[in-house]
């Protein structure tokens, strides 16, 4: 039977066979050939979650609410944000933490509309990561004057998989999904669809030209996430942008006329 004991570093381990002596084989590499099982039980995202909690605390102290905005590449996050900055101008000071693998194209575009933008290029020192994690967001937060902001939107790297795994310190998670991506993606990428509090179904102006069946998509979505709010929108025409902005105001805590 194993015998548990605790080391000074806090790890607990058990000898699997303390009474068996290994007298055969080559033992020149080490004096004992026994193997000890060390219980670790450490969450692999523990470090990320610690930094996310620090981000959340900093944002809360500065009175800033934070939304993590995720989607696949080309779903329309930046176009929606461009509309959002214009629509909320004068009501709410919006800041953007822009995550892109490379280039400052999106960041430059949003900054030209008057929103403070902090760019995190994940290829510069972060190994070309396909998502933002709490540490990268922390470095981006350091370049923003948080006390000047009401709401911060973290525009994550375009990717339907990895961003959903990392808490960055946000208050709510939003996802942009383009109808050109097909009906079945909620079942194929359930982690992100399940993580989202709101899903902006974008590019609805293209529906007459597509075979996309909204009822099928919504059925799949409800299967993986029965609670998410759905907003039908076209960032190109502006349809649904009011409803999206009302949701952002709700996250911020501003009373809206629509309730």
């Amino acid at each position: 039977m194993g015998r548990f004991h605790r080391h000074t570093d806090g790890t607990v381990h058990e000898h699997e066979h303390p009474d068996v002596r290994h007298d055969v084989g080559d033992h020149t590499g080490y004096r004992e050939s026994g193997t000890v099982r060390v219980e670790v039980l450490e969450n692999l995202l523990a470090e990320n979650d610690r930094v996310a909690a620090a981000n959340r605390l900093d944002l809360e102290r500065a009175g800033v609410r934070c939304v993590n905005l995720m989607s696949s590449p080309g779903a329309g996050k930046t176009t929606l944000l461009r509309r959002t900055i214009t629509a909320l101008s004068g009501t709410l000071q919006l800041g953007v933490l822009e995550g892109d693998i490379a280039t400052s194209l999106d960041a430059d575009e949003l900054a030209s509309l008057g929103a403070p933008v902090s760019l995190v290029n994940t290829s510069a020192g972060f190994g070309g990561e396909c998502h933002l994690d709490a540490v990268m967001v922390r470095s981006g937060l350091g370049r923003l004057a948080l006390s000047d902001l009401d709401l911060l939107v973290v525009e994550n790297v375009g990717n339907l998989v990895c961003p959903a795994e990392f808490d960055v310190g946000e208050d709510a998670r939003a996802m942009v999904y383009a109808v050109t991506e097909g009906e079945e993606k909620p079942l194929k990428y359930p982690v992100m669809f399940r993580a989202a509090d709101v899903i902006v179904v974008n590019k609805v102006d293209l529906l007459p030209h597509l075979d996309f069946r909204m009822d099928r998509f919504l059925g799949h979505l409800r299967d993986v996430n029965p609670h998410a709010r759905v907003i039908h929108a076209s960032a190109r025409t502006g349809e649904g942008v009011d409803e999206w902005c009302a949701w952002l105001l709700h996250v911020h805590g501003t009373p809206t006329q629509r309730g």
Partner: protein
Amino acid sequence: MCQAIVDTVTAHASGRQVRRVTVRIGHLRQVVPDSLSFAWEVLTEGTELAGSELVVEHVPAVVECAACGERTTLDWPVLVCAACGAVDVRLVSGEEFQIASMDVAEEVP
């Protein structure tokens, strides 16, 4: 992801020779065991963890139903009770992403 395992294990090993590392991954996590094993070989090459084995322990997705109280296992990422079909379920397991244990060469007392 795999680098996080390497870092955590290296810290816990504190110089001891590591032979096997067991990670526990929930069914609902987007982790491919073969990719993880491949990444493990690449990342440990030339380090003190070289030659160690990575064992991936799969944790099934289990939900508990608020309506009928049954605990059922899911194959599909759709969160419904397999007993009564209700969607008001609480996830009991399936989101694990944890280093469970590691086997190290026994220390000389």
